[in-house]
């Protein structure tokens, strides 16, 4: 995916670029991209069932990921936790990163975004499973209301809601827009671990194609208008302080801005 950042909307910038991954997580806020409104669910986005899940009319499911993929597979395994409870068709799931900016704007809706200490799954599994169950419950409630039947008689599997007694079915995509307007239920019952169908199963990594085709998924692949490059010029001797930058160095020759930081090092930045 090759996206010109200058031409995309804030929303696409925020959620549409799974490619930016580490870059967004590390870099975060981009000047000039200040949102007009903190609301995010809008016409330009597929219905947001909860902050974690959007479903489009053709049953494509986007599950948001608020932790960084660094090789351990979180970009795949974290969505699995949501999908397990959501009961959606895993083959139609696409993960997307949450931008830290958006998390601030929306009152830490996605919780902690730290990725460290082997805690990605441990620290988020409870609320991700809950998020999936909440979204499923909203979809079921919408279907039950349309059929005028008790919600307890409805169940979901592989993105299809079924009413056992009548045999009627509705696809997630058919009720998603309306379900998104329903209140998010506070209390939901989670599946028992012995009933899990996805969690614990070996699945293919969802970002493997990007990684074997050289897509721009790393921080150093990000290109923004007017972007500055930075380099640290440390003293080559331990404990020393960098005093001068050789006038023959490429950076000095290019007339780049040179700023001194408080650490006895120089930060060098230049406009391309």
């Amino acid at each position, binding site marked *: 995916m*090759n996206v010109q950042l200058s031409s995309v909307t804030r929303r696409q910038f925020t959620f549409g670029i799974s490619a930016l991954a580490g870059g967004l997580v590390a870099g975060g806020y981009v000047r000039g991209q200040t949102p007009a409104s903190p609301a995010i669910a809008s016409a330009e986005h597929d219905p947001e069932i909860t902050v974690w899940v959007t479903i489009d009319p053709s049953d494509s499911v986007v599950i948001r990921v608020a932790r960084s*993929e*660094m*090789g*351990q*597979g979180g970009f795949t395994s974290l969505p699995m936790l949501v999908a397990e409870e959501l009961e959606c068709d895993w083959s139609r799931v696409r993960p997307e990163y949450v931008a830290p900016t958006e998390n601030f704007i929306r009152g830490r809706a996605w919780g902690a975004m730290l990725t460290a200490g082997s805690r990605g799954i441990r620290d988020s599994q409870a609320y991700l499973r809950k998020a999936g169950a909440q979204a499923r419950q909203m979809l079921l409630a919408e279907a039950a209301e349309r059929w005028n039947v008790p919600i307890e008689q409805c169940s979901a599997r592989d993105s299809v809601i079924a009413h056992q007694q009548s045999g009627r079915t509705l696809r997630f995509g058919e009720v998603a827009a309306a379900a998104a307007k329903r209140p998010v239920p506070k209390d939901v019952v989670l599946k028992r671990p012995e009933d899990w169908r996805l969690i614990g199963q070996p699945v*293919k*990594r969802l*970002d*493997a*194609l*990007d*990684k*074997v*085709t*050289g*897509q*721009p*998924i*790393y921080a*150093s*692949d990000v*290109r923004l208008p007017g972007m500055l490059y930075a380099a640290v010029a440390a003293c080559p001797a331990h404990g020393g302080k960098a005093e001068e930058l050789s006038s023959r160095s490429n950076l000095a020759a290019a007339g780049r801005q040179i700023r001194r930081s408080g650490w006895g090092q120089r930060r060098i930045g230049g406009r*391309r």
Partner: protein
Amino acid sequence: MTDLTINNEKHVFDGDPDMPLLWYLRDEIGLTGTRFGCGAALCGCCTVHVDGEAARSCSITMGDLGGKSIMTIEGLGRGGLHALQRAWLDIDVPQCGYCQSGQLMQAAALLTANADPSDQDIDEAMSGNICRCGTYPRIRQAIKQAARELRASGQEHREERRASAAPESEHGTAEVRR
């Protein structure tokens, strides 16, 4: 002034001839699929093909590339995934993925030179490509799988050509694009 070909497109470079190819690829023409690893030809992360052979783009300067043909990871997958990329997906090789462009380009050069590499051939050819995640066993497995596929499709191709006597069949050549 340097004329060169990158992924089958002609480029004319008239900048500093000391600029490393990697800088030109990433910063000048936006081909960021080739990653910067060490900048000193020690890790293999930035591997591309120069006239079909694996080379470290961080340590080749633009001035030395006159008339050369470069292929990057973006070119390897052009017009359909390479057999190696398919095997990589099938075996789920990448973890963090950062070194994988270089791994794939190195492996592609190996298979061009050796259609049936042994474990030792693979280890020798790939020894300069470092993977901190440690995906080496899967890389080796994927190279063997791709090699089998390429040999099988080559065989099929030859048989088809004999059977149909068609001078240039497109079928079966999709994996070998260069």
